[in-house]
């Protein structure tokens, strides 16, 4: 079971429900169960008819306040593959344009009694607010620079499938850690399963209070089994921010090129990639790249998360049985 996140902020709180707001809410057992369920679903997707009846009659609302391709499409498809009804609301073109607050939008959508609300929002704490004001299970699909827990889970899944293990792996996370919710979620997930992490990037983009090894020396990626490349957000690098003097200098010093990799090293990226900035096109398209596998993993992991929240129980066995019935 995904651990209870109690709504203890506003006494008297509503009844506790299960949410996936942060990797910090998960135990190692939770992670292993979710990855196991995802593997079961991956097998079911090999079949000719890919739809399972598992979540028939359930409603999954996708509420996206930021642009997204991978996350929003995979959540929608995950829900559909499990036969849930889906409703996707994007901030642009909705009442958000008319100035409606997140709390009010969430209450409005809550009136349809959704079973799950998946939310992406540019501000940390938005999913927590939705959890406070609605009765739905809430899944954080990215809030500000805070958390992106399903990304961390799909990355663990990808690592497990590609390298056959998690414990004892060494991953170098390279780039703009400061502004990265992916990096924060990964660090917690890696700690749960025993993966060693090294953060590499320009000094101002490495928060000094994170509990991880950190260095600005790109040579440090040499020892890693996997190089995990973070997206450089161009808007953060514009004149005046001065995190780095220029994107050109960033690429020269920290860009992941074929020359900087050693044979056998694998490369990951959460997408969307800026080719020629943080990652060389030759790397992104090479056999060392796991980027496409990450996208595929996103679908089955999100199916597993929806299943776990709504059905729960000893997931691996039940999911397999359900898949057989289907």
């Amino acid at each position, binding site marked *: 079971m995904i651990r209870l996140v109690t709504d*203890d*902020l*506003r*006494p008297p709180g509503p009844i506790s429900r299960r949410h996936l707001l942060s990797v910090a809410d998960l135990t190692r057992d939770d992670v292993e169960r979710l990855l196991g369920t995802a593997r079961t679903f991956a097998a079911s997707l090999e079949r000719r008819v890919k739809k399972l009846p598992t979540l028939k009659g359930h409603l999954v609302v996708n509420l996206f306040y930021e642009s997204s391709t991978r996350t929003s499409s995979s959540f929608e498809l995950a829900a559909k593959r499990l036969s849930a009804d889906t409703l996707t609301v994007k901030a642009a073109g909705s009442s958000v344009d008319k100035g409606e*607050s*997140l*709390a009010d939008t969430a209450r409005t959508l809550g009136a349809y009694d959704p079973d799950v609300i998946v939310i992406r*929002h540019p*501000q*940390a*704490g*938005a999913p*927590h*607010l939705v959890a406070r*004001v609605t009765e739905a299970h809430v899944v954080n699909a990215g*809030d*500000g*620079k*805070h*958390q992106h827990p399903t990304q961390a889970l799909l990355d663990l899944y990808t690592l497990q499938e590609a390298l056959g293990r998690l414990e004892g792996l060494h991953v170098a996370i390279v780039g703009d850690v400061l*502004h*990265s*919710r992916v990096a*924060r979620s990964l660090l917690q997930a890696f700690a749960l399963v025993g993966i060693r992490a090294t953060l590499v990037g320009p000094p101002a983009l490495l*928060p*000094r*209070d*994170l*509990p991880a090894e950190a260095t600005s020396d790109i040579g440090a990626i040499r020892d890693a089994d996997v190089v995990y490349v973070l997206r450089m957000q161009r808007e953060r690098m514009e004149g005046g921010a001065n995190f780095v003097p220029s994107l050109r200098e960033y690429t020269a010093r920290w860009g992941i090129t074929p020359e900087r990799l050693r044979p056998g090293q694998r490369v990951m990226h959460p997408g969307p990639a800026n080719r020629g900035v943080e990652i060389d096109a030759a790397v992104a398209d090479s056999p060392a790249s796991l980027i496409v596998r990450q996208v595929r993993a996103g679908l089955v992991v999100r199916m597993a998360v929806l299943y776990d929240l709504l059905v729960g129980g000893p997931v691996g066995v039940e999911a397999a049985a359900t898949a057989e019935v289907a």
Partner: protein
Amino acid sequence: MPALWQRELPGADVVVRGARVLDPAEGLDARLSVRIDRGTITALGETVEANGHRVVEAEGLVLAPAFVDPHVHLRTPGREDEETIASGTQAAAAGGYCAILAMPNTEPVVDSAATLGALAAAARREAEVPTGFLAAITRGQRGEELTEMAELADSGAVAFSDDGVPVASAGLLRRAFQYVSITGRTLALHCEEPTLSRGGHVHEGRAAAELGLAGQPSVAEAAMVARDLAVARHEGQPVHLLHLSARESVELLAAARAAGVRASGEVTPHHLVLTDDAVRSLDPNVKMNPPLRGERDRAALLDALRDGTVECVATDHAPHAAHEKDAPFEAAPFGVTGLETAFAALYTHLVEPGLLPLATLLERMSAGPARVFGLERPRVAAGAPANLVLLDLEREWTVGERPFRSRSANSWLLGARLRGSVRLTAAGGAVVYEA
């Protein structure tokens, strides 16, 4: 003279019998009875004649000088939906306060004698407890031109502050120190170096790094504290540092005081009780400016309060509308309420565990702020006006179990169990609260 205003209230005729009377500034700690005639303390002794007055049996309770809060946001004018002079001063009465000072960062800013005069008139109609007002240092708190400080002081402004924002220009601050000297008032400074704090929602520390929230580093406060103390020292003027939060800031304050600078400081209950660990909840009710900092900062603030480097507890009571706080952490405004919980929070978290003597807490909540701002010191003495608080140190209560008197409920203590409650408050000679 700094002016305090209160609505017309009948002077109390009451006897408080058998309380532990604790007035640290008077060196008083004894089991006594006190008689108040028409709002003035007239008798203090082991037994006093009741003179037909109502008797409050206070066996087992503590009677102390009522509290003075030098840092309150009454949101009037402009945001009367969040607080009014009436509601804010009722909250103060319930919290045991006999005087509060309101900050000028309202809409419009209190930067002219006309605005101050209107507030004074409103306080004479509505204020449950004596209320004073600080006026802005710069017009519109824009940090460009000085306000007409002489006229504002003549109109009763207690002190000057651009609280909410720093005076960014050192040159302008210097002119403010020079000019304010003719008024005899103090500058109360919000210390924040804006290019270091910009965009920060919380303290820049481990919690911020892990949560991905932009942080305000401690040096954003300390760098400005250092600058402000240096300018005050150069001009030979007194200075008061608002809501200190960082260890380095109180170290600088201690060094300046040792060097003879007339510098004072204040700390809030939330900075004395919480650390930035609390923001991991992403509860907008622990979002304030300056932000909650680390455990070493909290410990340093407590040490400074204990040894007198910091002379005042100030609530920085900052009411916010529920619909504005009901937002994602990063979108929520800074500020928490505090008038109704300050004593109980500090008694529960500092006095009960033995971290701070009760007498010291009472001094820092009453005589300390009165001294810094040149106000009459509340005292338990014959001939003094009744500015008294009667405290029940045994009673436990849950914050929020009764509606707040404040119009806003953005308390960082919502749902907390606290020990210590106010049984009665007398302010300006009148009984303004009784539980």
